[in-house]
């Protein structure tokens, strides 16, 4: 993990996917440390005096590769009062404080896996977006193979499906499968499987899982359920299961 840094950033762009899911593009006031896909930052809306204590903040996975060492993208869903305030108040041109990068939910060679199964529920896809953004930039994966399983309540909420499709089309070794819980009709969503992410199907198609890391990101209940099944039903050791979860 690179040395984390506290930095001020300007909200450069706001994309409202739905009233409850918004992507913010932040532009930092200084060159940032190197981010590894999967890492997160702390973001605060409160005033911060760098000579004082860090204020109340929340943790968000970074959704881009931060390749220019300045631009950070966050996709935030309404979860409670703090994220609600963020979604309702944060506007282009606003100044915010953040610090990071943090975390070892990193999708790269350092964990020793040759393959990665990336399981994302809803906006839990954001750490994998950083991974795809980096792969598109490099034209290659940092490991041999990666398969994204991306689920949401409706096909419209698969907001990063386009990014995943571009990555699958151009980056060797990358594939993506899509799931929507609510009924799917029409050719436009033909590639989206109806129902929840199908762990049994994933495991049936995963072959030998010895060199595979299983990355779980999304609602806590989904993460816990999948982790329990991977450990109990599929006898995977804890070291092969990485979860993107905070207290």
């Amino acid at each position, binding site marked *: *993990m*690179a*040395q*984390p*840094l*506290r930095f001020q950033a300007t909200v450069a762009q706001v994309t409202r996917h739905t009233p409850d899911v918004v992507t913010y593009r932040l532009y930092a006031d*200084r*060159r940032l*440390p*190197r981010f*590894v896909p999967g890492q*997160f930052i*702390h973001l605060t809306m409160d005033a911060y005096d*760098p*000579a*004082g*204590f*860090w204020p109340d903040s929340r*943790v968000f996975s970074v959704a881009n590769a931060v390749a220019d060492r300045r631009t950070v993208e966050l996709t935030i869903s309404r979860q409670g009062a703090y994220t609600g305030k963020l979604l309702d108040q944060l506007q282009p041109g606003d100044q915010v404080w953040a*610090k990071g990068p*943090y*975390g070892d939910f990193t999708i790269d060679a*350092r964990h020793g896996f040759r393959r990665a199964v990336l399981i994302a529920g809803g906006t839990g896809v954001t750490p994998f977006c950083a991974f795809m953004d980096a792969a598109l930039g490099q034209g290659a994966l940092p490991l041999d193979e990666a398969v994204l399983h991306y689920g949401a309540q409706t096909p419209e909420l698969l907001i990063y499906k386009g990014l995943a499709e571009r990555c699958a089309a151009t980056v060797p070794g990358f594939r993506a499968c899509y799931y929507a819980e609510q009924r799917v009709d029409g050719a436009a969503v033909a590639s989206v499987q109806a129902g929840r992410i199908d762990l049994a199907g994933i495991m049936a198609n995963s072959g030998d899982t010895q060199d595979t890391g299983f990355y779980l990101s999304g609602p806590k209940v989904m993460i816990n359920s999948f982790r329990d099944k991977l450990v109990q039903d599929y006898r995977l050791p804890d070291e092969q299961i990485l979860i993107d*979860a*905070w*207290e």
Partner: protein
Amino acid sequence: MSPQDTLRQEILEKVSAFHTSRTAAPSDFRPGQDQVHYAGRVHDADELQTLVDASLDFWLTAGRFTDEFESGLGEFLGIDNVLTANSGSSANLVAFSTLTSPKLGERRIRPGDEVITVAAGFPTTVNPIIQNGAIPVFVDVQLGTYTPTLQAIEAAIGPQTKAVMMAHTMGVPFELSELRELCDRHQLWLVEDNCDALGSRYAGQYTGTFGHLSTVSFYPAHHITMGEGGAVMTNDDELARIARSFRDWGRDCYCSGGENNTCGKRFSQQLGALPYGYDHKYVYSHIGYNLKITDMQAAIGCAQLRKLPQFIEARQRNHARLAAGLARHAGQLILHTAPAQAEPSWFGYVITVRPESGLTRAQLVGALEGARIETRNLFCGNLLRHPAYQDITHRVVGSLANTDLITTHTFFIGVYPGLTDPMIDHILSVFDQVLG
């Protein structure tokens, strides 16, 4: 502006006025009467103001100025991770200890493993090797550059060799690109002790950015200062995290002072044989130290960093003037040189009195000191001749003939930015008087 901000501004203006009053009338240099130092702190009101600014914050431990200094130095050198430490020697200890981490698996340095280094230098380049139970393997250096040849290093590599850890002595880079390639070929760690060489380049790239880890010192004699201070630098994020752990008591948690739960898993991890959820702030993954700096030190460093380019230029200019003036004495003195691809940010001007010259070091140094020109030996000379090192386990490859000659015939004079042209004229005139 708040009343506090206004007061702060007034205080800082007073500090600037205080500095101006103290330095208002610099007197002309009087050769033979005024001391010509070999090194020293060079500053203006900026350092005093940032120091007082940090004091008014009263944050005390690493804070906003430390953040600014670490990211600023990293940006200057083009390196990803800069971790400040309370001295260059501490930085060496942290850098070497990092390589002993169990997190590095088979590549970790264990007691009994060998590390190639030199005996002609400063002890705290070698001490961490000994303190961690590894075995220093000494190779000789060349006269003139005071660095070893690549061939000498290669000849010292054995089955137990795990690393090369050496200093860019007096600012002269060793052959870095080639040495890094050699280290990679043999799966060796390379640690650059860059304490004497901040701002030096090799093949156009800053020293301190070639090795797996490097260190720098901010003691007043060095290129920039914060009183006491140093830093560990690396482009490897994993090594950075380990180094930070060793520096910060050995703890697993990476929260800065005054922070809590930046990892978001403070009470929900299973580590070691501790109960599940044991407070991560007090979980230790290494047997570490506390070698951090204060924010007041970093504040001085921030102001010094702004001056670094001009400091480097001044050192190069002063060294070039001495080199030009001393060239006529090359028959009696071995003059200071650097490898072809090196662009040193010199620490000093190193001189070896040729044994065949009929002169002694004592004669020359005596004349210089008598003319109030400070000299220093090339640090410890042959480290193995010092009382503390008589019984250490070590290996020597080849002879240490040049290292021994350095012990008896070598010294250096200053090139630091505080030297003026009249001072350098005075230095050269004393050499001319003694050497003819």
